[in-house]
């Protein structure tokens, strides 16, 4: 069942906002916004854990992530890795520029396998040339 209700798990007193947009057994779609640094790392994990186990597929909208550090990148990586090993599907959509920057420099574009949308005017900010070319369990590499 789709749940059209938006509700907030935690409101950002720390500049973080986590929302569930749709919640269901097959797909859960959620959005993480704001400050995704080490200060909120525990909070973000708590939020994701709550929905990760419940559905086969998790879609995270990262369009509102305006601050990020390596801890958040690692968290995304941990999700992807765990999903690959436990036959789940985790995808990230609508990456914000800061997220893209990390994925770019850390050579994780192929490893994540998500579709990366980069606006034309931002394209020269990125290389997307690092990382392993082929990744086990990756769902394809599309970049625009």
């Amino acid at each position, binding site marked *: 069942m789709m749940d059209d209700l938006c509700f907030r798990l935690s409101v950002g007193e720390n500049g973080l906002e986590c929302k569930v947009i749709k919640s269901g057994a097959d797909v859960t779609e959620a959005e993480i916004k704001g400050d995704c640094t*080490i200060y909120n*790392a*525990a909070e*973000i*994990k708590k939020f994701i*854990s709550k929905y*990760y*186990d419940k559905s086969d597929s998790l879609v995270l909208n990262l369009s509102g992530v305006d601050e990020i*550090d*390596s*801890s958040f*990148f*690692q*968290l995304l*990586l*941990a*999700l992807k*890795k*765990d999903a690959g*090993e*436990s036959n789940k599907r985790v995808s990230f959509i609508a990456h914000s520029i800061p997220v893209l920057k*990390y994925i770019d*420099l*850390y*050579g*994780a574009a192929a*490893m994540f396998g998500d579709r990366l949308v980069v606006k034309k005017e931002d394209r020269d900010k990125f290389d997307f*040339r*690092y*990382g*392993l*070319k*082929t990744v086990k369990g990756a769902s394809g590499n599309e970049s625009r």
Partner: protein
Amino acid sequence: MNLDSAKKVFFLESRENLQRIEENLLTLLENAHDQEFINALFREVHTIKGSAGMFGYQDVTNFAHVFENLLDGVRNGEVGVSDQLVEVSLASHDYMKNLIDFAENEKAVPDEVVSEGEVLIERLKGFQSETENKEKQKAALINYESVESRKPQTSTADTSTGVENRYWHISLRFGENIFTTGLDPFSFIGYLKNIGTIVNVIPVTQQIPEFKDFNPEICYIGFELDFDADKGIDKVKIMDVFEFLTDDCTVIVLPPHSEVDHYCQMIADLPESAVQIGDILTQSGTLTKAELEEALELQSSKSTDDGENHPLLGEVMLKEKMIPETVMEAALEKQKENRAKEEQRKRSIRIDADKVDQLITLVGELVISGANIKQRIGQTDDTDLSEAVEQMARLVDDVRDSTMYIRMVPIGETFSTFKRTVHDLSRDMGKQVELVINGGDTELDKTLVEKIQDPLMHIVRNAVDHGIESPEERLAMGKKEKAVIRLNAFHESGSIVIEVSDDGKGLSRDRIYAKAVANGLVTSGQNVDDRTLWNMIMLPGFSTAEKVTDISGRGVGMDVVKKNIDSLRGVVDIESTEKQGTTIRIHLPLTLAIIDGFLVTVANQKYVFPLDMVLECTDVEFNQDDKEGGNFFTLRGEVLPYLSLGELFYGDNFKNIDKTNENRVFSHDDKNKIVIVEYARKRAGFVVDHLLGELQTVIKPLGKLFYNMHWISGATILGNGEVALIIDVPRLIEYVGNNVKLRGKK
């Protein structure tokens, strides 16, 4: 942290860095090929550059950058060490010192200094462009080889065993707390783009646990990077990018075409299994399959002859682990050494000199009140109490000694600053001079060290300027072309002796004598002994230099030196042999504040002799000497001048005081108590009324009112509150020497 205090530390440390730069440069002159010194130089300049940048001293950073580049070239063997190079480097050192001085005083750098810097930068770059020209002539291949040969590990290796990978390989693993420290690996890796091109970045995810066990605040990830460094970037520079990472992080940097062995060692050092890393390395193109095969064959022939053609990659890697163990041990040993050095450095702390002074004042008071208690306890019969007091007195002694010791610093540092002076001067004057330093670890009071520097500098300059002959003259005289100036420091009977001796032409007796006659100090034909004559050169306006140079010879030198040393209660002594050299010897008191004293009375007033200078006390009858009218007495066959302190201090009145005193206090015969003291190798006896014994003395200055008291160097407060005056032994000995002699001659 307070920025101001951080800045203070920066200035202090930069001074130290600069000093070491200077020392290393001077050593480099003698030892042009010692890589150690070149490396050290580079590090020091690099440190200054880094910390100056941190505080925003852009001019220092910019200059240090150019300087550092040149030194880097030297380090890589691209630029040869030449005298010109050292000269320019020394000038660069001076310039940086200048800049830092301006920064510390918060003054704008004047234009002429700026332009001086620009000239220097051009000169520095001049050396580099030479290198670049040379480099252009070389083929690219040779360049790679030079990179290869630079690597310390592959001293014997032949480049053909290196891997094909023409990029640097960097492995990064972080401590698990790195995220919480606020350091983000992203910025380090991103920074690499400033010194080259990142060829590939592979995140290493093997350590990440299942999501339910995943702690988002702990760092599990690492990175494998391939990196194409810009020209001039070497291993140290790459390592420097990661210098802020803490000890629990692993940074491995492998140069292009490293041997397979080194990759194996790297794999062994990483936490992931060899299979996992091997996978990453082959897939990222760091190592080719063939190279792995090669490693594999190498390994199988080394360890077991299983004859298998395709053993598992992991097996090879694991076996590989066994090989580098000795290498690892050596590396660990080295690390241990470095750590020990680091700890040594951590053990010394910086203290504000005022705090130490305050402590010394307090200890002084403690010594006084300790003496008071000791005196009082002598009047009671309580043995337990007196034993306790005895013990306390001993402790007070120790406290005093170790407190005084805090202020003691080795003189070596001061000495080594003269290296530069001698080097510059002798170059300017076309002379060849070697400075030999002995006893650099002799310790003396910090204030003394500071105050002795200028006089010493003057003496050293004099030696180079006047003492040392030109190389031609020296050769003509059968001397070695290269002259030697020796700086010696040692302890001698309660004083520190600093000697500056040269093997130059020595003082000219004739010329000094003529000058002394011209100045009316001696009459023509008068017989004057050497020492008296030599000492005359320290009189104001006495210069025999034939030509006045900008270095010395204006006659305002040695008298100032003498005055300065006098003010430190020191004595200057000159020995010289014509054509063989001159030795100038400075005697300085050991400390300035607290001494062991020897208490005596003269006319009911108490006086203190510094105990270190007291040789012995004895009773003497003067009858026979008095008859001859000279103040001499014989002690075990040695004739010594003596002086009655009573007569000196009270003149004719003394006889009256003395009589009443003698009648009242003690009923001795006409034997005189005499204290024999020695200072600066001269001895004399002083007649006193009573000998009271030893005591600890805290020297208090006498203040302006007693400014002109020549025979008294200070005062001290006794246990009972009485004031005792401290005899200025050096001056008295000088006085006795002059006066008694003159009287004897009549």
